[in-house]
């Protein structure tokens, strides 16, 4: 790596953010990350940026560096502020609660992750496939009966992913408006710290009531299993607080991310007719299509944040203890260093890349096999049921989720 002593982004005073650029946010094409990332990967792959909340941190944009960062235990997930790289108002977060997987480090993280892992193995998800197919078919029937145009987010993407996680976890689907609303409030960039706190509290009391009800009347779902296990083992880390926190996380992460991938993936295929034709011609490309859409779209649009726990060097840069570091997943997935040809091109026939759309390191998405199954089944079934599927509104008018931590579409009007 070349020496960059004159680089203004290597300023030695971490509080001096006057001349620092911010996180690239302006997209050109809605399917591509902000163009600023390509430039940064070339010229300043690890660079200091100003945070809208005040202060600054490092932005890491190359694939190798992103993987190294996310796998390195010297970077902590125990952040003291929520999304400080995108939120304008951030308040100090309390210490992470037991079970708060996203904010815990090893070995504590694994203690809470392991009990839930069994519900998301390759084999378990394989067994769930027929049921997912049934759910998808029912939603497609309903769409067909209603006739177009419909909002694909409200009529397919959200119901499918919500029904699946509700059944798996043991949450009543009748409560969907409650948790959909809470997800919206938790993931909106403009939510104030108070609003975020309030939404977290409401979600926690919703799940806590469910835990209490299931203890009384257990069922055949993950939450009941975890409760029974916790009650049988005095040393179990799964206290009621941990169960509530885990349940909240699985419910929100389990539907919101995949729903956005379904809607955005559908639109992407509609806007790339050659790719859609290739998938139609060979449905066996479903796996590859999903991997490529995950990579190409990378809906964790602002990346993952970590904090250095000691002075260290990453990709030739000195980073000091206490500094925030942002791992840009969208940028890493478009880096030629990922080892695929022409990474900006969508190509559903390519050998799937070792992308980081699900993150990397010990926190890598627990529900990724479930997400894959839901995406494969929903996308292939949708396009085979409605061969004439098309947009019911001009593409320029579509409401993209630039305002949310998870990218996608607020609505997707389609007809057939």
């Amino acid at each position, binding site marked *: 790596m070349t020496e960059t002593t004159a680089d203004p982004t290597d300023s030695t005073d971490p509080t001096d953010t006057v001349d620092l650029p911010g996180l690239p946010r302006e997209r050109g094409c809605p399917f591509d990350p902000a163009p600023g990332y390509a430039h940064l990967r070339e010229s300043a792959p690890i660079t200091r940026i100003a945070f809208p909340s005040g202060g600054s941190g490092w932005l890491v944009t190359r694939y190798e560096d992103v993987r190294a960062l996310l796998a390195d235990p010297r970077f902590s997930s125990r952040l003291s502020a929520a999304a400080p790289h995108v939120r304008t108002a951030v308040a100090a977060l309390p210490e992470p609660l037991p079970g708060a997987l996203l904010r815990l480090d090893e070995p504590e993280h694994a203690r809470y992750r392991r009990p839930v*892992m069994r519900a*998301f193995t*390759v084999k378990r998800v394989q067994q769930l496939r027929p049921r997912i197919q049934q759910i998808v078919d029912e939603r497609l029937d309903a769409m067909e009966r209603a006739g177009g145009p419909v909002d694909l987010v409200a009529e397919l993407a959200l119901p499918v992913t919500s029904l699946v996680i509700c059944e798996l976890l043991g949450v009543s689907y009748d409560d969907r408006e409650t948790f959909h609303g809470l997800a919206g409030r938790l993931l909106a960039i403009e939510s104030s710290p108070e609003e975020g706190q309030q939404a977290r509290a409401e979600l926690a009391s919703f799940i806590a009531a469910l835990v209490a009800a299931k203890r009384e009347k257990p069922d055949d779902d993950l939450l009941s299993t975890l409760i029974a296990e916790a009650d049988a083992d005095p040393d179990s880390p799964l206290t009621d607080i941990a169960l509530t926190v885990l349940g909240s996380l699985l419910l929100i992460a389990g539907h919101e991310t995949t729903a956005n991938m379904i809607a955005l993936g559908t639109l992407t295929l509609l806007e790339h007719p050659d790719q859609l034709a290739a998938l139609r011609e060979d449905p066996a490309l479903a796996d590859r299509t999903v991997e490529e859409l995950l990579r190409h779209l990378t809906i964790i649009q602002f990346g993952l944040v970590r904090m250095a726990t000691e002075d260290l060097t990453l990709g030739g840069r000195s980073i000091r203890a206490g500094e925030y570091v942002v791992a840009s997943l969208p940028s890493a997935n478009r880096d030629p260093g990922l080892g695929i040809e022409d990474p900006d091109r969508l190509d559903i026939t390519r050998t799937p890349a*070792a992308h980081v759309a699900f993150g990397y*390191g*010990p926190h890598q998405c627990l529900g*990724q096999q479930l997400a894959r199954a839901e995406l494969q089944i929903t996308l292939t079934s949708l396009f085979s049921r409605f061969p004439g599927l098309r947009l019911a509104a001009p593409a320029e008018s579509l409401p993209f989720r630039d305002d949310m931590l998870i990218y996608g579409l607020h609505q997707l009007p389609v007809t057939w």
Partner: protein
Amino acid sequence: MRITLDEDRCCGAGTCVMTAPDVFDQRDDGIVVLLDPNPPAQLATSVHDAAARCPAAAIRVETE
């Protein structure tokens, strides 16, 4: 080719099972299981790929 696993590191997301299903499996609790510690040479590519993709660096492959 010789494979060793570090079960303690495994975070159970199953990338290895997807990548090299003849060599890796998961226990019911998600932790990786080695089906074949000395797989035939024609599986070398997928095994190396699985090791490279493992998010937890739990798979080590030694080639003679």
